[in-house]
Every structure is written in C-alpha cells, then in structure tokens.
C-alpha cells in the first residue's frame, strides 16, 4: 500500500512543482561503496533516478590484455570480492574450455563446495548490509558472525579470507583435508539453525514485512529488457539459474531447487536469497557425501598457457547473478580481449526505471535489495 507518486505525465502542467536534485553518494551509507545516485526529487518522492558509476573502475579488462593467462589469476576474485570463488570458477573454466582441459572430478566437487560456501558468505553480507539499510544493525553482526565461520573454513584451505586465489587451470592449487570436510559438515548443521533464527528475528518481523512487501516491484519483462539476472530475476518469478539452465561443473549431479517468487518486490528478492542459502547448504551436503578421491589437478596442463585462436564464452551463476567471460584468444600467451559481463552492472541499470515514483526511503530499500557490489559494476 505504498503511496506511489503520480509521475510526471499524470500531473497537469497547471501545477508546476518545485523539484530539487539530491546527490546521494559517492560516499553515502546506503550506496555500499562508491556509487552515486542523482535523484530528482519532489519532496521525498523520486521523480528521476540516475546512477553515476565508475568511481571504482579498476581496469580489469585492460589488465586482461596486459597479462598472461596465469598472471590474471588474482584479478577475478577482486572484481566481485564477495563471490570471488564464482568469478575464479568462470575464469578458469573459460580457459579450460579454450584449452580443452578435462578437470578431475574431485577438483570440480571441491570447486562446487567452496563456491557454494562463498555464495552463502556473500548472501550473509548482503543480508546484513540490506538490514543496515533498513535501519537494523544487529542482524549485520549476527550475519558476520556466521560468515566468519565460513571464512575460517576457506582460509584454512586457500590461505586468504576474502580474495581467494585458489582455482588453477585444470584444478586447484591444493587439496582439502579432513578437517575442512568436518568443519563444513558442522557448519551446515549450524547454519540451518541460524537460518531459523534469522527468520524469527527478521523475516517474520512486522516492520520489515511492511517495509518490503509491495515495494520496488520489478517485472520479469523489465528484467529481460535490462538483462538483470540472479536473485533479481528470480524475485520476478523467472526460475533462471545458470546452474540449471546451462549446467557447468558438476552441478547436474546435485538435487537443488531454484527458488523464485512471482511478486517482484523487495520481499521476493529477500526471500529468494534466504531460500538460496538453504539450497546451497543442500548442495554442500550432497557434494561432501559424494566427494570422490583422486587428484585435484589435471595431468595434461601445458606449462605455458596458449589457447588456440578463437572466441570462447563461459557463464556461471555468481551470488549476484550471471557472470560471464568472453575470451578472445589470438593464440599468444596473453588474452587478446577479455570481456567481463558482470551481474551487478545489469542489475543496477534498471534502477533508474524501477525507482521512479518511489519515496526516497523505498528507493533505497530497492537499491539494497538489488545487492550491488560497486567494483563489480565498474570493473
């Protein structure tokens, strides 16, 4: 029942309105980084919203053309540092596809486990940050508490907490140990209980429901026109998930659902992500149960990576949606062109249209529900 603003066209010219431009960002607590929003406001209503990006542009595509394939390995995890594993996955997979390397199954299983752990960690950060936007501080701390548990697991394997550089062309740089497996099992159990607590504390909360239900509706058609993916698209009722639609790695071997809700409002996107945490836990459980023995590195990996000339494309489902790499190789040690298709970029692009006529408070809730990582937008 949020009161929408009668946007421009429906108001007669006889009543000229005084508008002003509110500049939100690049430093503003609601923009999660260095995003700037130019909001044309009528009182507290947003008449027109224009995101201004580029404040965290870090030339990843240019660096791709400057470095050898191996040297680019640290980069993908810094594009979207919250789902570093997925980005690494896409990068190593596109090069493996170009080289035609077969990855040992154990390596792929571990990739899936770590990727899904990373997805949960990413959703937890979103959960906390989103609630911070809505004015609740405590859930952020609880979410970070759980996230630390994931980070401990991943740090023990990869050596770093955030920007993992763990996957290699043809496999992984090292194997996991029994401790990791045990820790992951324990974590799955722990997280299930915590999810119940989050639902009690947050999902069912009257104030939160009122703040999210019916706010910031994005239609499936709008998503399609802007290429929005991930939880944003699934929150508009389209069960589109790269893991199901264009299966990669060993995902076809696991049973999991693609949560989707037809409402298209902030609540739907919220529920999609919370449900996805549960689904990721399911995948991890299955992957651990099925984890095969064997090597974690393919045998036939050339010492110097020189993919045959051509054009290769690989998409993965990152925490924020479809992340894809288009690699154009000219047969040398250095990529000729490395195009990074990032989900946040497309998800943010529709903000201007979706925020029109909303109250500022609701517009910022909408922004939070898109789950943006600004360096992911800017690359």
């Amino acid at each position, binding site marked *: 029942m949020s009161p929408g603003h009668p946007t421009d066209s429906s108001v007669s010219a006889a009543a000229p309105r005084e508008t002003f431009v509110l500049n939100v960002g690049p430093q503003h607590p609601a923009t999660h980084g260095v995003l700037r929003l130019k909001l044309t406001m009528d009182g507290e209503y947003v008449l027109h919203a224009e995101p201004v990006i*580029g404040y965290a542009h870090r030339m990843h595509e*240019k660096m791709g053309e400057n470095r050898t394939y191996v040297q680019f390995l640290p980069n993908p995890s810094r594009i979207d540092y919250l789902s570093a594993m997925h980005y690494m996955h896409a990068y190593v997979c596109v090069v493996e596809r170009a080289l035609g390397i077969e990855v040992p199954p154990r390596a792929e299983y571990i990739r899936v486990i770590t990727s899904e752990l990373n997805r949960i960690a990413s959703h937890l950060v979103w959960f906390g940050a989103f609630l911070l936007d809505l004015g609740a501080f405590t859930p952020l701390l609880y979410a970070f508490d759980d996230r630390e548990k994931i980070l401990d697991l991943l740090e023990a394997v990869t050596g770093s907490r955030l920007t993992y550089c763990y996957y290699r062309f043809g496999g992984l740089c090292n194997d996991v140990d029994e401790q990791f497996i045990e820790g992951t099992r324990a974590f799955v159990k722990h997280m299930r209980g915590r999810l119940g607590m989050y639902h009690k504390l947050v999902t069912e909360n009257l104030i939160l429901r009122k703040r999210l239900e019916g706010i910031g509706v994005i239609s499936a058609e709008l998503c*399609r026109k802007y290429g929005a993916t991930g939880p944003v698209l699934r929150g508009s009722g389209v069960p589109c998930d790269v893991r199901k*639609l264009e299966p990669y790695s060993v995902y076809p071997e696991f049973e999991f659902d693609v949560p989707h809700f037809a409402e298209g409002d902030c609540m739907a996107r919220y529920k999609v992500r919370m449900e996805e945490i549960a689904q990721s836990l399911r995948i991890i459980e299955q992957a651990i149960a099925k984890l095969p023995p064997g090597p974690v590195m393919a045998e036939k990996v050339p010492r110097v990576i020189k993919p045959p000339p051509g054009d290769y494309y690989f998409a993965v489902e990152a925490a924020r949606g479809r992340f894809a790499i288009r690699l154009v190789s000219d047969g040398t040690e250095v990529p000729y062109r490395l195009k990074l298709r990032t989900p946040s970029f*497309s998800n943010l692009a529709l903000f201007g249209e979706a925020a029109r006529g909303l109250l500022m408070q609701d517009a910022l809730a909408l922004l939070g529900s898109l789950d943006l990582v600004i360096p992911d937008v800017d*690359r």
Partner: protein
Amino acid sequence: MNELIEQLKSAYAVLVVPARADTQAAAVPAVVQPTDPERRGCHLEVTVTPAVVVDAAQVANRFGFAIDTITGIDWPEAGQMEVVYDFFHPQHRLHLVVRTRVPRDAPALPTIQDVFPGANWHERETHDFFGIKFIGHPDLTPLLLPEDADYHPLRKDFTNVSRSSN
C-alpha cells in the same frame, strides 16, 4: 529447443540489408552459423552488417531473449572494430551472439536501446572503451571513465593518459 534454434535460424536468414539505389552496395544477407555450446559457449552466431543490428535485436526480442552484454573488439590489422551482442534466454538453454564489424577510422552504428533499454549502459561502456559511436544514443558521456575522459583505453593503440603526476 532445437526447434527454437531452427526458427531462429530462419528468422535471421531473411535478415538482409536491402540494396540501395543511391550506393553501389549490394544486398547483404546475415550469416547464421550454429556453434558447439560445449566448445564455444554459445549456440548460434549471427554475423550482420551494422545497418541491421536493430532488426537483429528485434528478432532476439521477439524470441524472448534477454540482453546479456554488448562489447567491442579492436582489430587494428583489419582496420575494423567488431561489436558483439550477447543474448541469453531466461527460459531455455540458448545463447545467441550477434556480431558486426565497423570500420576502425569512423566506427559508428545504430543503437539498439529502443529495443532493449538495458543496452544503453552497455553501449555507453563500449563507447568509453573503444570510441564506437552509437547513432541515436541519448547520452554517450563516459560512464566508467571520468566525465571528461577523451581517451579510449581498450583500443589496441592506446598507451597512456597524460597526467601531470606521472
């Protein structure tokens, strides 16, 4: 699925730049080429002339594709720049690539942002990086680069920005 690909193929097969009386240009049909998704990651590659990219996008739109991304590739030896349009299908396992090439010394082609509003940012970004002009685009001011940037860093001949500090 295969049926859909067949339909797509026939839809693109009729996509032809009509021969124009005032120029010498002959009618150019679109080249439709199915590819192996396991090797290349896409199902269908369509190569068109710049004049019909809007029509090509409209076909994609009609088939329910969503815009994935738009990017440029610089080919200085050929004196051309390639613009690649990626479309994915939200319901089916289907990936469509539309390619076109523009001359490198005056790169320009029509915008598809009327068909896919989401193309707006992708085109702006491509303009940022390659200096390719999208005719009819409402606003080509730099998106990722500073507002006053006049360089196109992903061109192969780009070396450095003159900055007072370095």
